[in-house]
């Protein structure tokens, strides 16, 4: 049924993969900040409505503005995500669209409309809606972002661990058998809280950074002290959430994609108990034949993968042999990779897994130390504030390498055990066309990154806006005139 892949189609394949990686990672710079910041802004605005203290309103306005600059990028880069399944991966789309399309459509109908409508009401409704209704709109925005995260993660989970489908031989495609199975995929159920907590870590770190920048300059001290502690607590609590959910995710992954877990540890042969050790760092020949140096923690890999200390973990070579027998038999064009390898690129999975954990841990550590140092409102040495500012991108980088691990670790599959990535690419799209779009997106996204970064930093440095209130009291409450809260483009 399938002809041999030609050199030209391989070019298009490599380019399409680069484009997917580039545009998806770029999109995921903005998404976690949107998800996390929506909740934190909603909490700040709730604090204002409940207490009437103007400092909460000023913080809501400041972080709300940064949220909006970021939101715009998340929206426009998201359209590319939906379109490129059809543009670059048409054979994938036609083969699994019957299942994969449903969560995407549900995401649109249930989450995107909700989010897009209420964000408009929140931005422009300050002077047009009663205070509590207006507060409700930002909570709705957050609910929209979270729902959207669930549906798209359910779609992604189908690629990692396909469930709830049958193969229809006559139509030559996979078809839905149970939407319940698709939506309650164990990978989705564990990936979802992991992603939400990671998003909160990033948003928390951004708030800490903005607060530290101002505190270093001794300005807006009252507001920024509150913001700093709010952001740092968010960061630490979210880190605990990320760790716990990450552990369940690791166990689900060992069960559903053992090759990915083996690749995360660069474990070439089966190991159990004390031998299933976790290397914090290692240096060896690329094929894993000789290890030159490593720092190892015994039993830890066993615990990460199975939750017990005497579990056994399968190795890459053992799995390769199993998969060859399973997926490269007769009539297996969709499941047998042309180079015969079922392992992802080991150095990428090995190091992305470690960087993900390490970067997140550093960010949480900085927050913990920061909370201790700022328990009184005292001025600290300048370098401590600088550390807090430069910690902000770490949770974002952790999220990004986490996705590199998740998606590169899935290779060579586009849908695990069902279809290889090379079979999913659009057969009719020439390499130069994909190259054109890759160049266009690289240039456009690069330029927009500079603009967006400048604007966010500018908004952050401007600090919380002045808000005049009538009947101001000593404890900082008072009623602002809604007119000055009005927002226009």
């Amino acid at each position: 049924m399938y002809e041999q892949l030609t050199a030209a189609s391989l070019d298009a394949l490599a380019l399409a993969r680069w484009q997917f990686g580039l545009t998806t990672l770029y999109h995921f710079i903005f998404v976690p900040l949107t998800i996390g910041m929506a909740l934190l802004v909603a909490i700040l605005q709730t604090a204002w409505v409940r207490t009437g203290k103007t400092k909460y309103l000023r913080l809501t306005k400041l972080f709300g503005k940064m949220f909006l600059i970021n939101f715009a990028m998340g929206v426009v880069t998201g359209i590319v995500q939906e379109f490129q399944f059809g543009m670059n991966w048409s054979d994938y789309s036609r083969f699994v669209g019957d299942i994969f399309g449903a969560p995407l459509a549900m995401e649109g109908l249930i989450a995107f409309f909700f989010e897009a409508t209420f964000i408009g009401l929140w931005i422009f409704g300050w002077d047009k809606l009663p205070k509590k209704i207006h507060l409700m709109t930002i909570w709705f925005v957050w609910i929209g972002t979270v729902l959207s995260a669930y549906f798209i993660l359910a779609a992604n989970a189908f690629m990692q661990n396909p469930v709830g489908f049958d193969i229809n031989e006559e139509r030559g495609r996979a078809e839905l058998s149970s939407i319940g199975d698709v939506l309650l995929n164990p990978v989705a159920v564990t990936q979802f809280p992991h992603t939400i907590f990671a998003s909160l870590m990033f948003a928390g770190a951004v708030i800490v950074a903005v607060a530290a920048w101002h505190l270093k300059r001794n300005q807006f001290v009252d507001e920024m002290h509150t913001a700093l502690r709010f952001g740092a607590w968010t960061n630490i609590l979210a880190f605990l959430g990320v760790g716990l959910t990450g552990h369940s995710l690791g166990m689900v992954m060992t069960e559903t994609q053992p090759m990915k877990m083996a690749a995360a540890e660069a474990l070439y042969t089966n190991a159990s108990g004390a031998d299933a050790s976790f290397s914090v760092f290692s240096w060896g020949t690329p094929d894993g034949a000789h290890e030159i140096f490593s720092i190892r923690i015994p039993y830890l890999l066993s615990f990460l993968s199975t939750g017990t200390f005497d579990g056994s973990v399968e190795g890459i070579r053992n799995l390769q042999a199993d998969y060859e027998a399973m997926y490269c038999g007769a009539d297996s064009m969709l499941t047998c990779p042309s180079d015969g390898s079922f392992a992802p690129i080991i150095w990428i999975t090995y190091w992305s897994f470690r960087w993900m954990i390490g970067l997140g841990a550093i960010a949480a550590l900085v927050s913990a130390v920061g909370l201790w140092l700022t328990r009184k409102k005292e001025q600290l040495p300048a370098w401590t504030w600088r550390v807090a500012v430069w910690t902000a991108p770490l949770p974002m980088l952790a999220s990004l390498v986490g996705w590199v691990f998740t998606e590169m670790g899935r290779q060579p599959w586009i849908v695990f055990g069902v279809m290889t990535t090379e079979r999913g690419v659009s057969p009719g799209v020439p390499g130069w066309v994909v190259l054109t779009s890759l160049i266009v997106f690289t240039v456009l996204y690069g330029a927009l990154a500079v603009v967006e970064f400048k604007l966010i930093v500018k908004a952050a440095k401007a600090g919380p806006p002045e808000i005049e209130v009538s009947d101001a009291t000593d404890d900082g409450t008072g009623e602002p005139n809604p007119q000055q809260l009005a927002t226009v483009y």
Partner: protein
Amino acid sequence: MELTTLWFLIVGVMLIGYFILDGFDFGVGISLPFLGRDDTDRRVIINTIGPVWDLNETWLIVAGASLFAAFPEWYATMFSGFYLALLLILVALILRGVSFEYRHQGKGRSWTRWFDQFIFWGSVLPPFLWGVAFANLAQGLPIVPADTGGWLYEGSLLTLLNPYGLLGGLAVLLIVWVHGLVFISLKTVGEMRDRARALATRVGVAAIVAGAAFLLWTILQHVGSETLWLIVLCSAVAAVGLIGAWVANLRGREGWAFTGNTVAIAFALLAIFMALFPNVMPSSIDPAYSMSIDGAASSQKTLELMTWVAIFTLPLVLAYQAWTYWVFRRRLTREMIPASAH
């Protein structure tokens, strides 16, 4: 009715919703350099769509995702086939989308001018290219069944740029421009309102000519087709809407003019969908190669699921979107634009 036919109509209605709603957003963006005499003017114009452009554009995303879910073959073949046209549309939508938010956040006039250019071109390109794409869809595309299953588009971007396709692009561009101008006059007061109305009268003539020529050509291309009477009927209603809108605008009845344009866009697109029926992608190489509604559709199970999702969500979506339009119903004045933006 078969579920496949129902979903053909639902996707059609979503696309109609997109062209009506984002249509006036595009028209507003195109009008920016024509009606905005100073920065306050331009901000009034942009703020007419400020709270709603994002939800309007979401109709495209939802229509696209619904197409993916209900007609994977159609989605896969059309999106990979229209590759470069879609790339241009994406670039335009990205630049336009960020510009609303970013144009006033930088320093200096040249910053703002750059983003105004993005808003203008980001509003011109998408309706034109969608027009080209949908005209070509109705006319038939060089598609053949692929040996790996599914269909293969054998043309390029240049295949789409034929006279009929270009006329379709021009007609859509002019119609959404008028639609946007009428929307501006509906949402503003005083001089801006008058200028928008006057320009709508002039552009309206061109829109009527291009629209009528396109619909007439569409009818002539489908003489002998079983759905010809439906194409003629929809085209006639669209023409009445377009001309009615022009007359209403001339008499200063903005609400009626807006309704007329809405009817025109809805029925012009319906005419295209009737021209497709019972196919979703007719083949220009051999009618036997055409992709039918049934051939493109998902399984019965997926369509049933999607039907339930649509039944529960769409009424709610329409309700809260209508509420948004109600909240922001007031006309904008220059006085409402503060010296500095948020």
